[in-house]
């Protein structure tokens, strides 16, 4: 139970904002990076665009942010989607296969727009499939999506025939590797999805319905919410986000790798959502929190690379950071620390 007094000043209200601790963590990580690596915050204009570590982090985080957004909504409805990595691979494979092409460059097998639409359609279909298993058949989300997680990579490899398909068609590279107004184009895609999603949650009752279904599905149904449709829709959206991420990734590395594209992305996405303060039990969620969570993960990864951490201890470092972040976020932990600090002080006074 929360026994603190009512927040009055702006500072206090800020102190109780649920995004405070994720934001603090991100800043801390950036500070660590900057102190060990003087060039870290440096940005310069090179070949008509911004160049620097911060840009890299944002660019690299783009697919993770997209997937985390989809995952946030799924988690808010009490679900989970562990197939996103496989969907990334499928979308990448479909796009790469449709574009095909030769080393010389030249014309793609199918127009690029068709390839993109095809990839997104495949991803959407994957999402709908997940949603139907969960909402219609009533499977538990984790097994429902496990099915696609296992089979999906097989499907992706089937499409690519087990090869890594290299893409040679230059216009396709723009999606994940191009620049617009000096910034990576992928950021614009992320921003667009974020804005659209935000509007959808603000301007429609979507947010209300998702939360109601996540907190109390029975009550939501009694109140007349069509929970099944909503759940299918949410999984479909998550699939679509994964598909977009697949396009970004395949375009950025100019190839589609059925086996490795999006490997372990599901774990990172779920971690991002939880680091952002959304509970896995469903209900209240925070898009901004998930974005922050994804940025934390990517900044951490980047720090590991750029600080010269030996690969053997990558995981230990990652574990340590996750422990610290989650402890910081825990009100109980902060209270314990506070009382541990205060108690000696009180004893001193008594003495």
């Amino acid at each position, binding site marked *: 139970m929360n026994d603190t007094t009512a927040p009055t000043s702006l500072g206090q209200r800020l102190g109780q904002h649920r995004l405070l601790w994720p934001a603090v963590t991100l800043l801390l990580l950036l500070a660590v990076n900057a102190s060990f690596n003087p060039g870290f915050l440096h940005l310069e204009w090179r070949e008509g665009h911004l160049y620097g570590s911060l840009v890299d982090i944002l660019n690299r985080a783009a697919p993770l942010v997209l997937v985390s957004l989809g995952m946030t909504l799924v988690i808010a409805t009490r679900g989970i989607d562990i197939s996103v990595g496989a969907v990334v691979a499928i979308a990448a494979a479909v796009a790469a296969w449709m574009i095909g092409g030769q080393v010389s460059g030249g014309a793609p097998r199918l127009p690029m727009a068709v390839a993109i639409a095809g990839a997104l359609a495949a991803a959407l279909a994957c999402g709908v499939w997940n949603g139907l298993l969960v909402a219609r058949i009533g499977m538990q989300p984790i097994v429902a999506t496990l099915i696609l997680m296992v089979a999906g990579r097989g499907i992706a490899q089937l499409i690519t025939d087990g090869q890594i398909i290299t893409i040679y068609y230059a216009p396709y590279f723009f999606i994940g590797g191009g620049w617009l107004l000096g910034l990576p184009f992928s950021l614009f895609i992320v921003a667009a999805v974020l804005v659209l999603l935000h509007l959808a949650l603000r301007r429609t009752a979507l947010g209300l319905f998702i939360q109601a279904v996540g907190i109390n599905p029975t009550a939501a149904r009694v*109140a*007349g919410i069509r929970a099944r449709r909503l759940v299918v829709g949410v999984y479909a959206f998550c699939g679509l986000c994964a598909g977009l991420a697949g396009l970004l990734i395949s375009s950025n590395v100019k190839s589609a790798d059925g086996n490795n594209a999006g490997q372990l992305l599901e774990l990172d996405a779920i971690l991002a959502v939880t680091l952002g303060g959304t509970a896995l039990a469903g209900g209240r969620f925070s898009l901004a929190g998930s974005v922050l969570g994804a940025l934390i993960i990517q900044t951490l990864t980047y720090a590991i690379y750029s600080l010269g951490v030996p690969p053997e201890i990558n995981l230990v470092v990652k574990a340590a950071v996750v422990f610290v972040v989650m402890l910081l976020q825990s009100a109980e932990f902060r209270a314990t620390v506070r009382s541990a600090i205060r108690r000696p002080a009180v004893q001193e006074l008594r003495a």
Partner: protein
Amino acid sequence: MAALPPPATPLLELQGIRKQFAGVTVLDDISLRLYPGEIHALMGQNGAGKSTLIKVLTGVLASNGGQMWLQGQPVAPATPLQAQRLGISTVYQEVNLCPNLSVAENMFAGRYPRRGAAQGLRIDWAEVHRRAEALLARIGLQIDVTRLLSSYPVAVQQMVAIARALGVQAKVLILDEPTSSLDEDEVQKLFEVLRRLRAEGLAIVFVTHFLNQVYAVSDRITVLRNGRHVGEWPVAELGPSALIAAMLGRTMAEQAAQQQPLPEEAAQRPPLLQTEGLGQAGQLQPIDLQVRPGEVLGLAGLLGAGRTETARLLFGLATPDRGVLRIDGQEVRFESPSDAIRHGLALCPEERKTDGIVAELSVRENIVLALQARRGLRRTLPAAQQAAMAEHYVRLMGIKTASIETPIGQLSGGNQQKAVIARWLATEPRLLILDEPTRGIDVAAKQEIMAQILQLARAGMAVVFISSELSEVVRVAHRIVVLRDRRQVGELPAGSTEAQVLDMIAAQAA
């Protein structure tokens, strides 16, 4: 009995109890004295602080001040477990049991009879089941104790919770609205048990909103108002109107008169809703109902009579496997509540905790939820309109809340119930089904809600009214359909008495 002067030292004494939630004081300098061998009624309006006091006293919530003595010794239980060890046995307001465990397990979790070597590592299931059946029999319930708790309706769950609390050797027994969905028979059986325990020297705290029950069993009354202690009286010294005045801080207007038969011209209108042999195997025998616009149809019956099942069938929450449902003479089939809602129906469900509130959402969001669901995703209610609507119902129903943005889970039980009713009123339905709408609601609010229902009916809304409180049913209904053992057994006109309804139920038993 009540004439005896209380012994010198209280069994349990509270002084200066204070409790704040996020800076809002909900208990302010509360004191309470419990003597051995008394039943002590704790009274107050919805949100007065009764349940909070009980939670503080049993270690669920930490207090922000005050002291507590048990048999003269200062105590401060920090968890419900500690409170239990001190001999305080509690039934909390909402049913707080585990739906996934069997009835017997719910009654004995934490104190299973064991057997086997070394003090008994192993639970003796046969013993558990035997004792569970015996204990339930004491309050007159004969059910299969090995079935899951969730397979029983809330009234049965409530009795299981009571039985659990009775099953321990306690010094103090606390019952927070134990009777809110029980019918008269069950209540009487419970009272018999309570009287026996009182004779054994237990101190019993009893919270209820039924004044007649207070006068039926309790010895003394403590009244809270707005988190403050109003006073403590022997029951003989505080008559009903004085009690109401102490609770409300004002007197209450006289109750509305008995319902009159439906006016001729209204009775001629074609029925809004009509069922012909509607039923579901194993749940409800075929039933024929008609409700006209402007009519209040009461459903009466004892526990498990099938009233809730009827409501669920009408609203698409359960699927009938026989019979026809007609709305405006057109045959319809509801696959889900949203179909029913589109035809202008509304159901305020019996189990507010599981089917009603969405705990972490705000009062505002809970109130607009059904209306918004009917309008669909895209036709969003503007924020200003939502706020206005929420404010309106908070005022109309007297919902006690810090603001309309407070999560509904933080409201007191009765206030949650009011908000759920408000949710359905806000949809302005053509037919409103109310299943135990007054459950946990205080006297003043009850009157307000009944008046509201009558007014809506006068304005042309059809109402199906279900309540374990027969007095309420006979007061508001134009017609009463009586159910028994999940079968329709008869119908009574407006103006019938409670006795007539009970006679009809009993007649069928013969």
